[in-house]
């Protein structure tokens, strides 16, 4: 073992290290952000008449209970369609299961991931091994 290090040297190493690492990566942030902004502008120039954003879809969660009463918790037209689709899916399920299911309530899940419930179910399945 060699001589012990002086405390001032140790702290010099630590501070220099942290400063240089942060400095290097902040430089990269600036650089990458600049490039990103440049490409964003380029793509906007190329597509001046971009389509208006599609209306955001709300993902729906379904609560199913065997032989329960229907209590729709939503009323807008869009949601009526969603409920109809969900009810149809549930009806199919009850036909194949041989059990009686009823849609008890349908409510939008706040903070749901982008995409529909099936897509997120698939995504959950895909990342489960991790």
């Amino acid at each position: 073992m060699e001589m012990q290090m002086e405390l001032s040297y140790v702290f010099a190493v630590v501070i220099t290290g942290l400063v240089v690492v942060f400095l290097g990566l902040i430089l990269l942030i600036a650089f990458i952000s600049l490039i990103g902004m440049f490409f964003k502008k380029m793509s906007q120039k190329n597509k001046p008449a971009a389509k208006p954003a599609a209306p955001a879809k709300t993902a729906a969660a379904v609560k199913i209970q065997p032989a329960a009463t229907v209590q729709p918790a939503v009323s807008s037209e869009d949601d009526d369609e969603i409920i109809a689709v969900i009810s149809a899916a549930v009806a199919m399920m009850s036909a194949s299961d041989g059990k009686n299911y009823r849609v008890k309530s349908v409510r939008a899940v706040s903070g749901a991931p982008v995409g529909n419930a099936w897509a997120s179910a698939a995504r959950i399945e895909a990342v489960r091994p991790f």
Partner: protein
Amino acid sequence: MFDVFKEAITELATTSGFAAIGWKEIVMILISFVFMYLAIAKNFEPLLLLPISFGMLLTNLPLSGLYNPDLFIINEEGHIDVLNVLTNGGLLDLLYLGVKLQLYPPLIFLGIGTMTDFSPLIANPKSFLLGAAAQAGIFITFIGAALLGMSPTEAGSIAIIGGADGPTAIYVSSKLLKPTDTIDTGTIALAAYTYMALVPIIQPPIMRLLTTKKERSVVMEQLRTVSRTEKIIFPIAVTIVISLLVPSAAPLVGMLMLGNLLKESGVCQRLVDTAQNALMNIVTIFLGVSVGATTQADKILNLSFAKVIILGVIAFSIGTAAGVLFGKLMYVATKGKVNPLIGSAGVSAVPMAARVSQKVGASENPTNFLLMHAMGPNVAGVIGSAVAAGVLLSII
């Protein structure tokens, strides 16, 4: 005739390994069995731990002459006598030249580059900050090692374990450590790879301890798509910026980015295939077995090894904590748009650390997908630890 036979047998017995083996070698061989068990039965980084542990076995079999540390003593001119190693070295001495001359880690980085997708980082460059914050583990451990009375070269080699990056740890320790030091590259590599395998056990308690349920449940905005041109510019830009800032990080960062450029260019498929399969596998075997060979009994069975083990886990934990705490800072700064859990992925350990962020996040909200968000700090951590390595090499 009987006398000749007796003499021959006695001669054989006295020159055999059985006569020369001591308790230290036996202990080391048993330790190599433990690591083999961890690699085979527990799947602890098997691709590296298995060759390392077998190298450990080989080097502790007496009289085999596979590895001779005396050959690697630095001469008056300040470097090792390569010709002497080539003429008098055993098999593992020859392979170890690749470690001692810092050849293998950059080649491994080339392979890693061909397998890394930097787009989460390009889409969210702020992730670089988390990759930088997690390097605090390296430097704070340096203080700890200094307080325990270690030499600067030893302290630097131990601290780099906190970077959670095997090739970087080997690169730094093989360059820093001197023959007079009580630890060796093999010790550092063993600790680094063992802890990397233990990332899913070490990190989650720290992550939960430092975050609130609300913070862990943050769902982050989807990342934007990154254009091909951006992906091609990225490796070139990083190489230039980092190599100019910290020239001693150039071999690692340069090779990492070359690999990535080969991949993203889309025109070098054959080279990508070789770099990420054949070349990487060959180098991994050479690296593993020769690094394992440096773990001779007197280098392991001493107090310094215990210090490496303890400081190694501290380095890892501090790195994780610093990443998460910086994540919390970003959570506050962005008014709750950043999930602090992705900060822990800032220690490299790709992709294990990002998986841990995903897993801990999903345990709060199963529909929360942090994986891609965590990959940003994760790959930034690789660059960050290479920069930290460069800093350590140039200061110490």
